[in-house]
């Protein structure tokens, strides 16, 4: 009981109030994140409507299989994250730590594949800027597509990196026994963040990789 008291910050009346505040605070933060990525999704929609052919052609230059595999990897990491929170909820510290580590590994795999993709795009001269090359005459709008590709996946990857950092902190805290069935809010909130990053990718995958496959 006494360790429970120490985690309550002075401005709150009780742990419940503190948990509710943190929970809703995280959701509000995620709503801002929706709008943050939303700015890019809007730009994407605008140009996709203006240059449908170019977007289809450019999208076909991405490796759809890597994209699909990465989607599966990220979804799996969301699943392990949910199990980690479950472990915390039910007071199984071992499970919590194990699933947190698994989530980190899956996140790292995702980033590894992503890095490989970036690398090959670089070699194919598909990075916007002076070195950009695209055969055919849709080159200019195709460059816009790749600008979105890099901006959106880059911003997403940045969020992944931050998420992995948070997960690592959670592992350390869990090891030190900072969490209990009565108090595991940080794990829960890290989980929310991680799932959000997953959701962004759930939209990025069809919008970036699957545009022109049927053509």
């Amino acid at each position, binding site marked *: 009981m006494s360790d429970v008291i120490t985690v309550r910050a002075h401005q709150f009346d009780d742990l419940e109030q503190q948990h509710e505040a943190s929970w809703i605070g995280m*959701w509000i933060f995620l709503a801002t994140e929706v709008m943050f990525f939303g700015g890019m999704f809007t730009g994407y929609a605008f140009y996709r409507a203006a240059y449908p052919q170019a977007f289809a052609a450019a999208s076909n230059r991405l490796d759809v299989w890597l994209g699909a595999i990465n989607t599966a990897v990220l979804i799996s990491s*969301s699943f392990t994250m949910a199990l980690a929170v479950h472990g915390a909820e039910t007071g199984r510290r071992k499970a919590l730590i194990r699933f947190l580590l698994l989530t980190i590994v899956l996140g790292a795999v995702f980033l590894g594949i992503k890095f490989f993709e970036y690398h090959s795009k670089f070699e194919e001269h598909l990075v916007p800027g002076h070195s950009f090359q695209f055969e055919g005459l849709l080159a200019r709008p195709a460059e816009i597509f790749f600008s979105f590709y890099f901006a959106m996946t880059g911003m997403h990857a940045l969020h992944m990196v931050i998420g992995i950092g948070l997960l690592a902190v959670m592992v350390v805290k869990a090891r030190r026994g900072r969490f209990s069935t009565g108090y595991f809010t940080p794990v829960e909130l890290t989980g929310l963040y991680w799932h959000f990053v997953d959701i962004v990718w759930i939209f990025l995958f069809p919008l970036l990789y699957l545009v022109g496959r*049927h053509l």
Partner: protein
Amino acid sequence: MKNGAHISVRAYAAVFAALLALTALTTGVAFVDLGGGLNNVAALAIAVVKAVLVILYFMHVRTSDRFTWIVVGAGFFWLLILVGGVMDDLLTRNWPGR
């Protein structure tokens, strides 16, 4: 009610399986020409279903209070406002036609 209450491992596993299946589905469907822009509709619809599953189950919104629902809803609703306003401009640039 305490937000973010318990959801069973079984439900998690079912959602996980559904998400993987939907990923396979969206990838598969993308290679079939549905015509008339239906490919876009299918891709987006599947993505929305997946996102909703993640939000409701993995993120425990199903067992959370109304305020959480409002915050979640507001985030996406505001995005619709933004997309809607911008697309309204783009798609009506030839209106009224000369």
